[in-house]
């Protein structure tokens, strides 16, 4: 079974941007933060209605519907963003390193850190109305979904084989035709796999974000997330289980009704020149394929729209002249330079203001933050180690038994899609009952979400170990030790790294939720960066939020560059098994 490496690839894209670009981008982010906070605080005086959440099971379908609509809107926004962003980055050499650095930093910021500024901005846009909060939540889901999609699309565009690009140029394709016949198909598989990861991330954020407190205010939107949280706060186990059940049903249904057909369909975009034997089967796709109307109608409508467009486009200069692939970017006009300089100045000023905000952070706060950073760092890595420790033996055992793997792997894939945030409350209530603290408990909470990615990838790695290598191993009577060190571990290494990279991103994100929670009216927390972010949101302390977010982002970006990217390179070069 062939697995693309969607997220991992996006984390470790080869980048050539110099260090000052990262600095510049960080400055822009700071500036944006300052702008939003200073305008939002002004509007924040207006009253805001709070919708009460019912705990009756009969409202669940309605709540589920609300949440799903939010997800769908956010997903399509993310997709549109990803395609636009990736396209611009890939085709504009001048802004490319900047845009990629922006993505790199954005994806290291936990979703929750976006919450206060986003809410402020949206409330400022639509003051005194529930719509502002609605838009804020959708935007938060968007931040949990879009970065890896954008990375995926960008990398796909950059890896289109040169001769295919040349073919599209020499046959004078318009940008429109190139997009639909070359760029989109070529990126389709990456986009589908990343969408699965993205939507899982979206659910994760949604469940957390539908209810939150900021300063003295409570915000609530009707939906599955607030249902689960209300149940947790009230200690209503019955409602809690019903809510979790609803989430699982939705995730499984999405997997069966949407992702499987999509994966099966996207098989046609495989770039391999040979037909592959095993493919994902989907009854729904078969059904659609056998339906006459579904087969011909969309094509007919589409060509109605397209044909006149092609005729018109063929008359444009773009379609009459062959454009060189290595065209030099034109000279930038002095006006643009002046604008860029003015923009840079404004950014510097705003960034300086944001940093000035930090001066309210006391030395004691700083110590707390540093301790928190160390604690969270240790926790994330402990969670990763534990996942690796149990998934490697189990995953290999499953992967080497093909029949078992066929059953377990889809299950692991679904488990990876179930948002861990839905299970947190159960674990939390358990912790409260046992009287345990969150210190160790939060590791368990992180594990909940992250281990499945590792398991899923290890199984795929074990399946991919060529059978002739395994035969050689048994032919030469390898000892158990030799089998593991010479065959199995090197064989699964690239897959393991892929899983760990994804899991590490997830664990950092989860730390925010795992280290701090409201359960049954009480607040559970432990020392950690995530807890700081959470507490700062709750108390509306922007300086702490900013400081903690900067630290977490710095740590994630550094870890990605120093550790994961290197390991990934190694996996791509040294341990690649050609099959």
């Amino acid at each position: 079974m062939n697995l693309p490496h969607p997220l991992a690839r996006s984390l470790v894209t080869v980048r050539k941007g110099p260090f000052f670009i990262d600095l510049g981008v960080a400055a822009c982010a700071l500036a944006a933060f300052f702008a939003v906070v200073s305008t939002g605080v002004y509007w924040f005086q207006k009253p805001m209605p709070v919708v009460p959440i019912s705990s009756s099971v009969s409202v669940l379908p309605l709540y589920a519907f609300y949440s799903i609509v939010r997800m769908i809107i956010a997903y399509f926004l993310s997709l549109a963003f990803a395609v636009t962003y990736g396209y611009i980055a890939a085709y504009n050499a001048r802004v490319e390193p900047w845009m990629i650095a922006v993505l790199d930093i954005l994806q290291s910021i936990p979703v929750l850190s976006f919450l206060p500024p986003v809410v402020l901005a949206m409330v400022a846009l639509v003051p005194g109305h529930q719509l502002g909060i609605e838009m804020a939540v959708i935007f938060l889901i968007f931040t949990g979904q879009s970065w890896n999609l954008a990375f995926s699309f960008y990398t796909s565009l950059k890896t289109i084989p040169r001769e295919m690009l040349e073919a599209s140029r020499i046959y004078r394709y318009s940008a429109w035709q190139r997009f639909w016949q070359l760029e989109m198909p070529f990126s389709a598989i990456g986009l589908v796999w990343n969408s699965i990861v993205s939507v899982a991330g979206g659910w994760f954020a949604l469940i957390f974000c539908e209810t939150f407190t900021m300063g003295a205010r409570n915000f609530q939107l009707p939906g599955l997330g607030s249902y689960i949280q209300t149940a947790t706060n009230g200690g209503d186990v019955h409602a809690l289980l019903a809510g979790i059940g609803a989430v699982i049903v939705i995730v499984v249904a999405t997997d069966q009704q949407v992702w499987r057909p999509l994966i099966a369909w996207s098989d046609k975009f495989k770039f391999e020149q040979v037909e592959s034997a095993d493919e994902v089967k989907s009854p729904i796709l078969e059904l659609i394929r056998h339906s006459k109307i579904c087969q011909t109608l969309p094509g007919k409508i589409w060509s109605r729209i397209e044909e006149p467009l092609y005729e018109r486009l063929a008359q444009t200069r773009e379609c009459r002249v062959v454009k060189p692939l290595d065209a030099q970017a034109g000279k930038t006009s002095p006006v643009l330079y002046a604008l860029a300089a003015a923009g840079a100045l404004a950014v510097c000023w705003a960034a300086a203001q944001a940093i000035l905000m930090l001066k309210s952070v006391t030395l004691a706060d700083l110590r707390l933050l540093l301790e928190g950073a160390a604690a969270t760092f240790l926790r994330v890595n402990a969670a990763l180690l534990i996942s690796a420790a149990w998934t490697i033996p189990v995953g290999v055992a499953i992967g080497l038994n093909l029949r078992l793997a066929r059953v377990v792997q889809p299950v692991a894939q679904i488990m990876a899609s179930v948002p861990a945030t839905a299970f947190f409350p159960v674990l939390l209530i358990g912790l409260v009952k046992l009287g345990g603290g969150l210190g160790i408990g939060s590791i368990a909470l992180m594990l909940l979400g992250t281990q499945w990615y590792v398991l899923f990838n290890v199984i795929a790695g074990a399946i991919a170990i060529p059978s002739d290598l395994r035969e050689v191993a048994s032919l030469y009577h390898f000892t158990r030790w030799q089998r593991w060190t010479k065959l199995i571990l090197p064989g699964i290494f690239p897959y393991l790294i892929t899983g760990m990279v994804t899991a590490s991103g997830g664990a950092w994100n989860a730390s925010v939720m795992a280290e701090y929670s409201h359960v049954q009216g009480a607040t559970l927390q432990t020392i950690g960066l995530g807890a700081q972010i959470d507490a700062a949101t709750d108390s509306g302390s922007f300086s702490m939020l900013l400081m903690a977010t900067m630290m977490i982002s710095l740590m994630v970006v550094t870890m990605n560059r120093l550790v994961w990217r290197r390991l990934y390179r190694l996996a791509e070069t040294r341990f690649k098994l050609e099959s």
Partner: protein
Amino acid sequence: MQETAATNPALEAPPATDVIIRAEGIEKYYAQPSQNRIQVIAPTDLSIVPGEILALLGPSGSGKSTMLRMLTGLSTPSAGQVFWHGTPIHEAEINVSIVFQSFALFPWLTVLENVEAPLQARGVAPAERRERSMRMIDMVGLDGFEAAYPKELSGGMRQRVGFARALVVEPEVLFMDEPFSALDVLTADNLRSELLELWTKKTMPTKAVFLVTHNIEEAVLLADRIIVLGRNPGRIRTDFPVHLPHPRDRKAEAFTQLVDYIYKVLTRPDVAPAAAPGQPGAVRDQRQMGYQMLPHARPGGIAGLLELLLDRGGRDDMYRLADDLAFEIDDLLPIVDAAQLLGFLKVEEGDAVITPSGEEFANSEILRQKELFRNAALENVLLLRQIRRALDAKSDHTVREDFFLDLLDEQFSEEEGQRQMDTAVTWGRYGEIFDFDAARRRFVLPDALDEEIAAGEDAS
């Protein structure tokens, strides 16, 4: 002195209006990180005129593909200009097609959709599009496969689709970049003769064909005019017409003579370097610089060639050698070049001639061979000599690979620099000049090895 070859005067100055594509002094260099620029193509003039198949021959890396891309407007020359019927190519509505070595078909489109796509780009109405595409698919012998996807087809059939797509727009010039080299011999032969038939019977409205290849026989089989490119930087070595009537017989005397002649051109040692063109900036000609270009041959291959040559009495025709070994010239040439560089062999009039030192090498047993190889390599190859000196000079007897890579990068592209290094490592290891620790990317002295050998010699 710029090397210009025997050109047919009639071809050299065709009536200006008749020329389809004319390149004037085009050259190409690539920027290097170290401020230098690598010249890939030296200033070159070239014309494509109606009614001929023009073949561009040359060793690997001589810039054939680069040349083709400049002539089609896909790549802008670093200097000079390309004209399409007298207008600069980027302002003209040109009508050319390219057949690619890798086929470059879109795997998600059916055969029919692949062939239709270029017409769609030109705004041809659906009905006409379909009709023209079907006709073209029939013409290349693929009727019945319209609805198939490329991955369901064999390599030969895929390239047929490539031809159909190229011909469906009725191009004035058909460009081909090694169109047959990804196919097996029989399939390639078949496709070649079918293409020739289309051309000679004027079934296709194409006025000229431009074929890039590194297969000499293919060029002689098809072309009306052959241009041979030399390497470092790419430049025209010779440009001559072929007057043999079609269909051509590979066994015919005139045919083999021509093939032989081209072999000689390709294997002739480089003439004195051309004067550096009056270019501003640091355009450097690789031949004027310190490092020789190491041919990418393995020592085992060199030994094998020398032994074979000795077996043949120390002298043999290169063409026959390649033929007997069933080698492509591109495979044999690096080995010959390497042996020549080490002083084991000379090339005279297209014959390979073994030298006394080569003879000694071929007659020795393996340890002695290594020693002879080491001496010859240290004497003739600057890079190896430098590495060894650096190792001897340093107290810990190890040197980083990067150090030499940086030096190589001054002169070669990054990719070629790495290839040069890889070859140097293979040679150095074989000759026990040094050892290479691949994990740490460092050169080390083969002390341990030396001691072992010394001990062995003492004992005997």
